[in-house]
């Protein structure tokens, strides 16, 4: 397993190329092309802002105002996470030709899915910055140093889950369908459209078990809430958990590796 992990480093050129290919291919043929990476989160933002400020006004306390900004802090990383997982679940089957016909390290495929979506996440950040400037939010430069750490933790966590899911989906195709529903549930269990403080105490304990909750809260702490980053202990715990998830995911992937060429 460690040897295989080391081999991944050798394949970084391939991963890089495939991520670029993925990004290029995605918008090929559409009029707006790369701008969709900006428009997609923007449109999503408009939808939710419409629902929660016009259809259901007064749902949110002052602590999460301006709501558009609050929501955006959560939905950007969430989109990265959920899109990565749904793509990763399909990626080995879609790339079956490669696995069967070319000598190819299969783990590259789910990793590419996660990284390509990370690029989309980064492309969404300028919009976030524009919002921050528009709403004139005070940002603490020191607190911003946490931002890359949160991204790193999310990257490790997402990659671990992506490896696990992609390997299992080869054997159980229905994970794909299960996953899309699970992700909806997961979305609403994560404080994105509401804040953690708004959840009743009885539920909060459960929500605390959700790893994504802590990542999203960390983003909100750094980007939205004024004041010091109070969530860093949770974040450090998440770092440890992420590494555990990654190793577990990679272990399962490595164990099932030999079956891919036959089962895909």
């Amino acid at each position, binding site marked *: 397993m460690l040897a295989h992990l080391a081999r991944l480093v050798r394949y970084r050129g391939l991963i890089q190329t495939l991520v670029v290919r993925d990004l290029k291919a995605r918008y090929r043929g559409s009029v707006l092309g790369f701008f969709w990476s900006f428009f997609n989160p923007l449109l999503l933002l408009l939808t939710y802002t419409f629902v929660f400020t016009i259809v259901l006004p007064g749902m949110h306390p002052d602590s999460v105002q301006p709501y558009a900004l609050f929501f955006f802090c959560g939905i950007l990383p969430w989109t990265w996470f959920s899109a990565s997982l749904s793509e990763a679940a399909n990626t080995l089957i879609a790339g079956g030709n*490669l696995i069967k016909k070319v*000598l*190819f390290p299969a783990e590259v495929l789910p990793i590419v899915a996660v990284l390509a979506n990370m690029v989309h996440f980064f492309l969404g950040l300028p919009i976030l910055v524009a919002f921050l400037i528009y709403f004139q939010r005070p940002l603490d430069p020191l607190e911003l140093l946490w931002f890359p750490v949160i991204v790193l933790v999310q990257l490790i966590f997402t990659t671990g889950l992506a490896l696990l899911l992609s390997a299992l989906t080869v054997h159980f195709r229905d994970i794909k369908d299960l996953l899309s529903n699970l992700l909806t549930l997961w979305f609403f269990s994560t404080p994105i459209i509401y804040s953690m403080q708004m959840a009743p105490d009885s539920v909060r304990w459960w929500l605390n078990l959700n790893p994504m909750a802590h990542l999203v809260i960390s983003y909100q702490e750094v980007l939205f809430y004024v004041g010091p980053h109070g969530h860093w202990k949770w974040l450090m715990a998440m770092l440890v958990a992420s590494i555990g998830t990654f190793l577990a995911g990679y272990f399962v992937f490595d164990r099932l590796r030999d079956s891919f060429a036959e089962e895909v």
Partner: protein
Amino acid sequence: MTPAIDVRNVSKVYRRYARKKQFATLKSALLSGSLISDLQPDETFPALQGVSFSVPKGCTYGVVGRNGSGKSTLLKCVAGITRPNSGSVEVDGRISALIELGAGFHPEISGRENVFINGIMLGLTKREITKRFDEIVEFAELKDFIDAPVKTYSSGMYMRLGFAVAVHVDPEVLLIDEVLAVGDQSFTLKCLDKFAEFRRRNKTIMLVTHSLDLVEKFCDQALWLDKGKNHGEGEPRRVVAQYLIDVGKAEEQLLAREEAGRVAQAVADAPVEAERPADPADGGDAPADMFKATEGRWGTREIEITHAELVGEDGEPGHVFQSGEAVRVVMKVRAHQPSNDFVFGFGLFNADGVCCYGTNTNIEKLDPESISGEAEVTFHIDRLELVEGTYRLDLAVHKVDGYPYDYHRQLYSFRVKSRTPDVGIYRPPHRWEFKGDVRWKPTRS
């Protein structure tokens, strides 16, 4: 010197799952707690069984064998795409496997970008590809289309580009699985030239193919796989000859089985009335009948063909003959009552049901006097000058006016093998002659 490819005692078992389990879902597996047992196969299929061989550096190694004999699995094991269940595979040097051309091309992006991505997948660096890019495009003959998305390519263009990238990886060991059938003649020749260049540069090539010609001409050594086992190895000519004999035998068995079935069927439903059309060789029949490839047997059986067989040069009855071989058709007949009105007929049809030749004793001015009891009729063909293919025979005994005694329509079949891939129905004895400044290289094989 260490061999380039060293395969020791390799076995590969494919697993088959029962239909029921193919539809198993994670949910049902979890509910019934059978997750582990569902991952166990309930049937296995051995694709390779204890195959060993080694290929020295610079050797061109051919693998032949029938469909399903494990050739491609072996190649995949050598390429490292699948792992054998037991045994070891060692390959010295960079491998490029031409198993499927253009695997991994993304349809939406341009040929240019795909060349880079494919090259990187095959183990080149960006710089190496940039250096070879023009050569690759030139080789693929796609200069004008290289910036178009690959989805607009024809399948030939797609294959050519895939092939061009794969051979420009400059591997130490090149694995080829039946991919030479891409593109037109000139492209095939170009591929062969490329392989010849590999050989000159002392690279190792392992070639899986059905083209025995290629193996004989091109390979230094050959391996014959049969049902996943090493069935013979060594000098290509010898291996190919052995393989051909075996293929002939199998074909022979198949034809014999089919024929036995046909004859038995015909005997069972043979009508005894004499109302069927007469021997086509009589010439009195409408030609439409000649093309009607209905098989069967009819006649009154006053004179009966009790047995018929084809005998080759080796004196053994058989169903597979070499083109040009001396063949005789032997009919055993029995006249249940003496007769003075009889004609023996012979008709030869190709697989399309076209009559290639037909004659009878009457046409050839043999005047019947009498026949009684058991007799044997032999039709000698001194040289079976037929092109390769499957042929069927009509054999008949009838009266001069066409009244059938026993008519066997297309009940007997045989196969002609030829090393010359000429076409048509008839091969006249021929030779070429050239006058003026026409020169030929020394014979190829």
